[in-house]
């Protein structure tokens, strides 16, 4: 089943066309990578999907948990998150001054049913919801070894752990589709390998579909089911890792000639 489909979306900033006529289709439970040179428009595509930018043209269509296809173009980012799309950011955007624990608990807010009044009065139905959320958050934090550090402020974590925390925070929204923008940026090869394993694990554990931007080719080739390649805002290729690796256009625009170490 297709979970996400973009129907010719285009984004223009002033004179610059950052993305044009982008056609993407993601099947449920796939891991799809989006690669391409810097400035190709990858992050912009993510921003259009998550509602941070509204496409100048075209539509983004998402199939919700009931199997209905809904148009999410023009919806607020928060509503899109509620539909089950979560993301991380290219430049980490944690709630810096808040604790690790709070960072993740915040992500649980979107499913809260109690209104502010019953929350402030700590009425039982609010409390029940919170206890459930606390249990889930504990589990998530333990899975990335951040439970011990839960009282630390987010900014004081080392970079790698911040990346992990951001992913866990996204997971806490109970997404069906997870968008990762350069999760391995700034990681050395060893950490990148660990991350690969982690992404695989969460996909299985939470039955996720993953759509990911990445420049680390080992990671991309290793993990993706399919790859889209963007250049100058347009799709220049798509297919399996093997096909992409051998694609002439991709090599000349992005990968470069493989030289051995």
């Amino acid at each position, binding site marked *: 089943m297709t979970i996400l489909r973009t129907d010719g979306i285009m984004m223009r900033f002033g004179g610059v066309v950052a993305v044009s006529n982008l056609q993407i289709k993601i099947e449920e439970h796939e891991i799809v990578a989006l*690669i391409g*040179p*810097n*400035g190709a428009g990858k992050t912009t595509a993510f921003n259009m999907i998550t509602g941070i930018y509204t496409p100048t043209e075209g539509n983004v269509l998402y199939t919700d948990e009931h199997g209905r296809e809904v148009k999410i173009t023009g919806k607020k980012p928060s509503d899109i998150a509620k539909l089950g799309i979560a993301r991380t950011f290219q430049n980490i955007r944690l709630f810096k001054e808040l604790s690790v624990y709070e960072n993740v608990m915040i992500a649980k807010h979107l499913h809260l049913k109690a209104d502010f009044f019953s929350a402030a009065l700590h009425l039982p139905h609010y409390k029940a919801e919170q206890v459930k959320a606390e249990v889930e958050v504990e589990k998530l934090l333990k899975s990335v070894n951040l439970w011990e550090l839960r009282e630390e402020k987010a900014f004081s974590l080392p970079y790698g752990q911040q990346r992990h925390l951001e992913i866990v925070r996204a997971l806490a929204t109970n997404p069906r589709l997870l968008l990762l923008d350069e999760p391995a940026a700034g990681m050395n090869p*060893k950490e990148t390998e660990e991350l690969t394993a982690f992404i695989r694990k969460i996909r299985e554990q939470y039955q996720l579909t993953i759509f990911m931007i990445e420049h680390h*080719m080992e990671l991309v080739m290793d993990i993706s089911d399919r790859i889209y390649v963007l250049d100058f805002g347009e799709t220049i290729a798509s297919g399996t890792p093997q096909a992409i690796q051998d694609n002439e256009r991709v090599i000349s625009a*992005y990968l470069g000639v493989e030289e051995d170490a």
Partner: protein
Amino acid sequence: MLKVEELVVAYGGIEALKGISLEVPAGKIITLIGANGAGKSTLLRTIIGLVKPKSGRITYNDKDLTGLNSQKIVTTGITLVPEGRRVFSNLTVWENLKIGAYMRKDEAEIAKDVAWIYSMFPRLEERSWQLAGTLSGGEQQMLAVGRALMSRPRLIMMDEPSLGLAPLVIKDIFRIIQEINAKGMTILLIEQNANMALKIADWAYVLETGRITLEGTGSDLLANPEVRDAYLGKKKS
């Protein structure tokens, strides 16, 4: 020429650098590798005067730089390509380059250097009049490198220039690093991409949580099993 002795730097109460000594001889490429949060950026920020050290000494050609402010330090011919690019987003690409040459007065030479940088990064020339803030990450990184070069530094310190760049561009950047090194510039390079960095380095240091744990020539470290295990990953070589 650049010498760091027993440098200790603390943020609040926490020491990010716990007594580091290293040397950057003229004309060489020196690389510093290490995990996230090891203190690499802190070292560069301290050298350039953005952070004041708690103790230790930094000298450059025997001039004591410890505790001077950045503005003084850069006049000695040191420059920095900062982590996360930090181009002036409200200035055009061209103005960013011009401001790189802020301390220079030789207009004719500046124009030549701009042309040189454009020839290295044709992408920037296309975008000459675009505000730098609207460039993509990779374009901004090119600009940050270009801007640093405009001051005609003798020592250029680069903080993860390959961060978030496409493989093709990374190769370009590394090629350029070697190119400018060949022109006589000294380079202090911080990289996550240890593989490539060690390949071009004359000498390399490994930094772990505020301390230097290993040093050696680039090829030595590349061959070192500990390093390979910790920073290079299993596959590929």
